[in-house]
């Protein structure tokens, strides 16, 4: 007898499946128990992620005996989902909660402003909301129409579903579509890098990410700055939220408290976010 008969093969298949499932499920169970007591997991918006990482870093330095904080990206919706499903203790969102996410408990950790950025050498300094909408919907296609050096405008946008894109759609586009021709990059940093390298590009990023290689244009004559955001003059703003489902675990609560503490808020404002004045 050299080969197992088909019946035995079937049995083998079943055995294999049981084995695979058994082996993989075991650590799965262990994981669940371990998570409640062990580390804190944050997941969500890639806009919030860098700030959360810095907070986690600082928290670990200050309180070395506290449980470690893991920060994952994934996006606002993924963050909300992770918080709902328990995959993460805290979800990070860079937009308001959607209707389907209302059972989550939001905490505003800071306000972020969206800056419209162009290349350092671009000589356009002021755009109206109407002009920005025209650019991103594809009606205005040349810098010459805006008083700049004539040449095609390269529009850089964010991917559909991202918190930044959602805020931009809501605050600027007002129901109009960002044109399909727009180049799409998947993070604030990537948009900034693209604009920094292309004299004809325009994009939008968090105010905190504006550096000396790009320039933020005035929107309706208002400069994008912490002051103009605090005074409510600058209109392109959105909240950064930490969300939890039900009551946070004590460890998560500790971390939330750290974020809202003077020190946590100082870190956020140093990185360019707008926090309540103290």
């Amino acid at each position, binding site marked *: 007898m050299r080969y197992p008969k088909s019946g035995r093969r079937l049995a083998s298949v079943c055995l294999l499946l049981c084995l695979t499932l058994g082996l*993989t499920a075991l650590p799965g*169970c262990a*994981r*669940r128990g371990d998570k409640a007591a062990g580390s804190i*997991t944050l997941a969500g918006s890639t806009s919030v992620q*860098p700030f959360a*990482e810095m907070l986690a870093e600082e928290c670990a330095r200050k309180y070395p005996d506290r449980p470690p904080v893991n*920060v994952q990206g994934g996006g606002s919706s993924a963050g909300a989902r992770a918080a709902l499903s328990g995959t993460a203790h805290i979800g990070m969102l860079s937009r308001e909660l959607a209707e389907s996410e209302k059972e989550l408990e939001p905490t505003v950790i800071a306000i972020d402003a969206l800056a419209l950025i162009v290349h350092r050498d671009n000589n356009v300094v002021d755009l109206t909301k109407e002009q920005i909408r025209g650019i991103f919907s594809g009606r205005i296609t040349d810098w010459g129409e805006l008083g700049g050096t004539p040449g095609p405008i390269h529009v850089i946008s964010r991917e559909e579903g991202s918190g930044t894109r959602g805020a931009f759609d809501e605050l600027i586009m007002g129901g109009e579509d960002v044109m399909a021709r727009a180049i799409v990059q*998947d993070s*604030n940093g990537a948009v900034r890098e693209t604009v920094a390298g292309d004299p004809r590009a325009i994009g939008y990023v968090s105010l905190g990410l504006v550096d000396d290689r790009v320039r933020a244009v005035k929107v309706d004559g208002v400069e994008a700055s912490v002051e103009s955001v605090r005074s409510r003059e600058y209109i392109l703003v959105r909240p950064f939220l930490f969300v939890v489902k039900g009551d946070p675990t004590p460890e998560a609560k500790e971390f939330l408290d750290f974020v809202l503490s003077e020190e946590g808020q100082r870190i956020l404002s140093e990185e360019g976010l707008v926090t309540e004045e103290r």
Partner: protein
Amino acid sequence: MAPSSGTDGAYGPGALKRPKRSPGRFGMALVQGCAVLTVAVLVFIIGYVMVKGARVMTPGFLLGSPEKMGREGGIFPSIVGTVSLTLASVIIAAPLGIGTAVFLTEYTQEGLFSRIVRFGTESLAGIPSIIFGLFGFLFFVIRLGMGWSILSGSLTLAAMMLPTIVRTSEEALRSVPDVYKETAYALGASRWQTVASVVLPTAMPGIVTGVILAMGRAVGETAAVIFTAGSSLRLPKSIFDPVRTLPVHFYILAREGISIENAYGTAAVLLSAVLLVDFAAYYILHRISKKRPVARR
């Protein structure tokens, strides 16, 4: 590079027909140009990354922890993460892959069953890494509740490297001369005894080469890992912790423009690791093919 006219004589009597030589010359120059261009691209890529990354590759960079999202500090957690993720995936995939190869070569004849196994392996080899990533996310991370962790990542990577290990191990096993096996059987050895004491040891260098090559691919994988092992910057304490592997760290640093310098440094470390692994594999392969020219062809 000098044209290979020196080998003309060895190949054939090139002087026989003179009139038709010019198209041959042109064609040869063309294919030689292709080879030169390909090698030039390779050298450029490796050189570019190494030169730009060399400055950053200090002991402090290799052994330090990242600070300010990786803008400053080192990449130690990512090195640990990459090594542990890769080792874990090899530990999972190697026995399965080698076992499959032994099964295909020694325990079954070509038939419907072996065709199904082979179909499974080959199909797996063609699946894009992003699909593995989606699957790993759905199955390991969510369904089995392992979260973003070394475990989820390594199981996903193991599935990805399985076909490579099966294929190379199968080749190595098939290259074991039949005489060896026949001798073992003649001495009264059973099938498993023959496999365990004769076939596997003889094929081992070839198998190891295949496993190392698969490892080299796993080290550089990004799309599947980012969905399953996460992107946490912390030093992992156990296989249930998430990690940010070197390619993922590189991707985030470079893409977000956090620190282009550190990105090059990370890429240089990553590339050195991959090259080291690849060279190791070819070295082993080279040594056996020298020792045992019977291997193939």
